């Protein structure tokens, strides 16, 4: 006999890897991060006399890898949260929107196990996406003439920011469950991105878990590294809430 638990994890991994939404999210995230980071840095460095160059230079607030990393993490911060949030909302919400949820009842695998499998598949994808973003951005930095010294530190910072922000989108899986569809989760993702950026703009970023990683990576930051536990805690809480909501799920009672 096959373990139903293993089957649930395999099914969720296969669904996510085959889905058009996760493929589009992967490609568009990588392209956007690369274009905004490498393109922005190159424009600031090599076309500083143009209007666009002056705009880009205003975003590169420190020389060398420090400025490049800050630009990269700003781009990664928005795209990771948005892309991963949308995919996580879809992963859960599509079961309700497409009515495939009925096939996930009356199984030896508990629904909490299926929720865990969804969280696990989405989290691993988010970490792989973070690694790919980190690799691409760092390789582009080296190609633009930045020195080898400092590249590893920059790669690690970009990975950490992308990974933490991707994982911190996990509460949208719970919202998609409670809202019985992906629109609720996608709306929550958009709200997170907007509120985080507005709060950071007003100088309140250090109390917003989704703003902390980008602020930590900024040159001359005043964010204590321990605060990076905040987005990680949000991720754990999101995973547990999703599990709990799936374990108590009923159909037709809304």
């Amino acid at each position: 006999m096959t373990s139903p638990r293993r089957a649930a994890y395999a099914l969720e991994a296969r669904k996510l890897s085959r889905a058009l939404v996760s493929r589009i999210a992967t490609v568009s995230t990588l392209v956007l991060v690369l274009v905004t980071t490498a393109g922005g840095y190159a424009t600031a460095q090599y076309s500083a006399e143009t209007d666009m160059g002056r705009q880009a230079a205003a975003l590169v607030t420190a020389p060398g890898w420090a400025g490049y990393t800050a630009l990269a993490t700003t781009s990664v911060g928005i795209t990771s949260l948005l892309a991963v949030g949308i995919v996580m909302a879809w992963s859960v919400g599509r079961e309700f929107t497409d009515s495939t949820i009925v096939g996930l009842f009356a199984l030896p695998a508990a629904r909490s196990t299926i929720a865990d499998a969804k969280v696990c598949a989405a989290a691993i994808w988010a970490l792989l996406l973070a690694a790919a973003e980190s690799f691409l951005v760092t390789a582009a930095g080296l190609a633009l003439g930045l020195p080898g010294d400092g590249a590893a530190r920059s790669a690690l910072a970009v990975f950490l920011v992308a990974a933490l922000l991707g994982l911190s989108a996990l509460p949208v899986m719970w919202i998609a469950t409670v809202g019985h569809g992906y629109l609720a989760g996608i709306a929550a993702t958009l709200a997170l991105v907007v509120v985080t950026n507005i709060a950071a703009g007003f100088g309140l970023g250090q109390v917003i878990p989704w703003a902390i990683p980008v602020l930590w990576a900024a040159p001359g930051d005043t964010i204590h590294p321990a605060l990076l536990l905040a987005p990680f805690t949000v991720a754990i809480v999101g995973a547990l809430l999703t599990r709990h909501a799936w374990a108590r799920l009923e159909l037709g009672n809304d």
Partner: protein
Amino acid sequence: MTHALEVIDVRRSLRARPVLEGLDLTVDAGTCRALVGLNGAGKTTALRVMLGMLHPDSGSIRIHGQDIGSARGDLWGRVGHLVEMPFSYPELTARENIAAAARLHGASGLMVQESIRDLGDILRMTPWLDIPAARLSLGTRQKVGLAAAFAHRPDLVVLDEPTNGLDPLAVVGLRELITAFTRDGGAALVTSHHFDEVARIADQVDILHRGRVRDSLAPDGPDLERRFFEVVLAADIAEGRP
């Protein structure tokens, strides 16, 4: 004798409106039972309660003598179902969908492959097994859902409108499948709006009306449709409802 499925005095309200009002129903091994009723009679809610998708306000559901509220998850490995929507994810092929459903029920790899081959033949869907479900017709997706309900070789199946979208040849295949399933000791509960189809598949027809089974008819008697309406009308008159 232990029934394959036993629904005992189940009551369930939704949004403060009683939907199931003392539902009693049994399905025994080696039989196919049909549940028929008008729209809003409570069929969908009844199936959801039987499959653990909704908890009853009172009463109990037993599968092979075990209360589903307290039974181990393994019990569901003996149950197959197609309710509301077929198990059919568009990004997976028909074969992958069926195999995934079987493995979620605990079936092993070799058995799954054998089942898919056999069910593909019976339901006339072999040419479409390796095509993504997104490109399949409604009827073929229904066949995928039926195969997913049977692939792990359950001994109880619950099928909601199983002939939805099926062509006449596939309907014959489904009838053969259910006949062979019950002949081998399986228990089946099907819902349908088609009386001629019910008469060919089921051993007994239960009439669900206003949340309760009002009568149980033999499918081979005269004019099943007329007897159905007589039972419904008698129930309404007895309760003083229009």
